[in-house]
């Protein structure tokens, strides 16, 4: 029985999904959301204990294989990110009337999928986790059924997502054919043996399909077209969940597949990831400049961030991987915060066009300040978190030397470029006057839960930016451990 205690967080989250369904029947949405949040936080505390950040709560081995699953600090770290993102989104939705128990059930199902991806040690369970999160988010995207945009976004997301997952499964089938197993940690055990051919072209064929499939999840450049449409059409909290949670899950899956033993069999991926890194960040930043809709702009900025993170896959040294993880963490926090702010200001009658943000600081100074901090952090203005993570990541690339320095240069130039469109919104909020007729201040109750989550996220952004030492040390620790594993 004690063997199943390792699944406590996942089980807790499953229970919260079922309870949310129950409370949906009882028609008490606040309770559904509240219980989901509390159970998530319990799971978070347990994982924090396991990951060695706080004292241990249940004494369990910190890492090890368990059939289909593989427990590591690496996975726990990502689980922490997933739970933070989900709890922030759920807190925000408590303030809105249109989200009921089904919403919480689906988002908890999606969270379960992400948690499963993070602890997967087998490609089958990894893809099942991806699909669980995927199917739940298809529905979540179309959650506002009355809205044409929402349903259209869901349909687009569904079609592109299913195509991508079928490509992933196809690639996995080829990998299975070559290696004879789907288990990653089994592959690790057998890494030195010759019966699994190294540099097999079929292996690369499989990788191509898997990269195309997972490239969809992380919105990598030629596979990115869905992201702006879906983020725009989806309800803002769901966009936050997609941009911060779903994308992080894609990166988790890529880390598991490409930075594990498979790299031993197929070492030639560096160039490919370098190419896609530069392509993705440039596409994202340049197209972001043109956008007039704030959610689309954030989507393109999210694409650009995927480009930065891909540098870690190309460089593949402990420092670069630590930087990549740090960037994933900071991007998740900043992006979920930004989308939550977009959701909250829509309550006050601010539209989605970026010109609607003119003069926001005059009416909602706290929201504007938080949004400005998030955007400046995304742009990489020191001493905020976004600067620190980019600095560690690019330092990793520079330290590796060789042509990787080009990646760092591309990254620095791109983030200099990106400051333009972020700073434009800061300028709109602080310097320009509101357009007449905008900002009809509807008399509504204060969205207090959203303020809590925004406040917490801003505190994380500023605190980590000012004192990044422990978190950088932790990421480097995890990365070196992970690299040893492989």
């Amino acid at each position, binding site marked *: 029985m004690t063997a199943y205690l390792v699944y406590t967080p996942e089980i807790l989250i499953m229970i919260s999904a079922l309870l949310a369904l129950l409370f949906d029947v009882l028609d008490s949405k606040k309770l559904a959301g509240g219980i989901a949040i509390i159970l998530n936080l319990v799971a978070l505390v347990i994982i924090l204990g396991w990951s060695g950040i706080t004292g241990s709560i249940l004494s369990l081995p910190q890492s090890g294989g368990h059939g289909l699953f593989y427990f590591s600090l690496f996975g726990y770290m990502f689980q922490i990110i997933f739970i933070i993102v989900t709890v922030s989104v759920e807190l925000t939705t408590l303030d809105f009337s249109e989200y009921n128990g089904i919403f919480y059930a689906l988002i908890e199902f999606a969270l379960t999928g992400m948690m499963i991806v993070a602890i997967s040690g087998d490609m089958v369970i990894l893809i099942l986790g991806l699909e*669980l999160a995927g199917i*739940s988010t298809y529905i979540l995207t179309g959650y506002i059924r009355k809205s044409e945009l929402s349903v259209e976004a869901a349909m687009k997301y569904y079609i592109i997502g299913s195509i991508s997952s079928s490509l992933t499964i196809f690639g996995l089938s080829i990998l299975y054919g070559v290696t004879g197993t789907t288990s990653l940690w089994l592959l690790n055990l057998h890494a030195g043996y010759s019966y699994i051919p190294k540099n*097999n072209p079929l292996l690369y*064929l499989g990788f191509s399909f898997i990269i195309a499939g997972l490239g969809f999840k992380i919105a990598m450049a030629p596979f990115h077209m869905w992201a702006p449409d879906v983020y725009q059409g989806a309800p803002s909290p769901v966009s936050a969940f997609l941009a911060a949670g779903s994308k992080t899950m894609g990166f988790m899956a890529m880390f598991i597949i490409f930075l594990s033993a498979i790299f031993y069999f197929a070492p030639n991926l560096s160039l490919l990831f370098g190419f896609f890194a530069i392509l993705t960040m440039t596409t994202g930043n340049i197209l972001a400049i043109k956008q007039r809709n704030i959610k689309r702009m954030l989507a393109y900025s999210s694409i650009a961030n995927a480009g930065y993170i891909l540098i870690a896959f190309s460089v593949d040294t402990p420092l670069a991987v630590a930087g990549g993880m740090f960037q994933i963490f900071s991007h998740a926090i900043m992006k979920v915060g930004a989308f939550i702010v977009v959701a909250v200001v829509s309550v006050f009658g601010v539209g989605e066009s970026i010109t609607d943000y003119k003069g926001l600081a005059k009416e909602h100074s706290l929201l504007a300040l938080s949004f400005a901090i998030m955007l400046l952090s995304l742009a990489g203005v020191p001493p905020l978190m976004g600067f620190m993570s980019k600095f560690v990541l690019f330092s990793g690339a520079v330290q590796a030397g060789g042509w990787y320095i080009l990646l760092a240069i591309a990254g620095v130039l791109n983030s200099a470029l990106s400051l333009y469109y972020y700073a434009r919104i800061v300028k709109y909020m602080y310097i320009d006057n509101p357009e007449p007729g905008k900002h009809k201040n509807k008399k509504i109750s204060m969205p207090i839960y959203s303020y809590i989550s925004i406040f917490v996220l801003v505190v994380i952004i500023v605190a980590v930016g000012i004192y990044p030492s422990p978190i950088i040390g932790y990421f480097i620790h995890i990365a070196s451990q992970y690299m040893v594993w492989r």
Partner: protein
Amino acid sequence: MFLTVILLALSFLAIIFAIGMLYSREIVHAVIYIAGLFIILGLIYFMLDNTFLGAVQILIYGGAVTVLLMFGVMLTKREIMDKKESITTEYEYVVLIALTISIYIGTLFTVSSYPLSIYYMSMYTLSTVLFNSFIGAFVVMGVIIMSSIIGAIYMVKEVE
């Protein structure tokens, strides 16, 4: 040799059915072609002595999924009565896909040898593996089905 001929014939038939689905003007016909395709794939599994998977393929794909698609067609009948699919060959896509597939098949041929032993897959072996190594995946599969059911029900519920 005999097996090879039969497999070639079935493969050819499968491709014919797939193309038939792509080029049928009536949607109902297209769905029937798809059912045929699924059943032929099931037959190939039988030919490889993988009877259980063959049965599952025919039952779930040939039966359940096709019925589901049929329901989809029938529930949106108004549309189907109005319009028929216009069939044109869009050569740019043909070229693009042909390129992909030729790279795939070309790579297949560069690999010198595949393991050659065909074995009989009993249901017993399968269930042993399923309920020992893959029990976790089985549980996750259950969650996926539950979430998709909940989602589908939510989606088709009347908007109040």
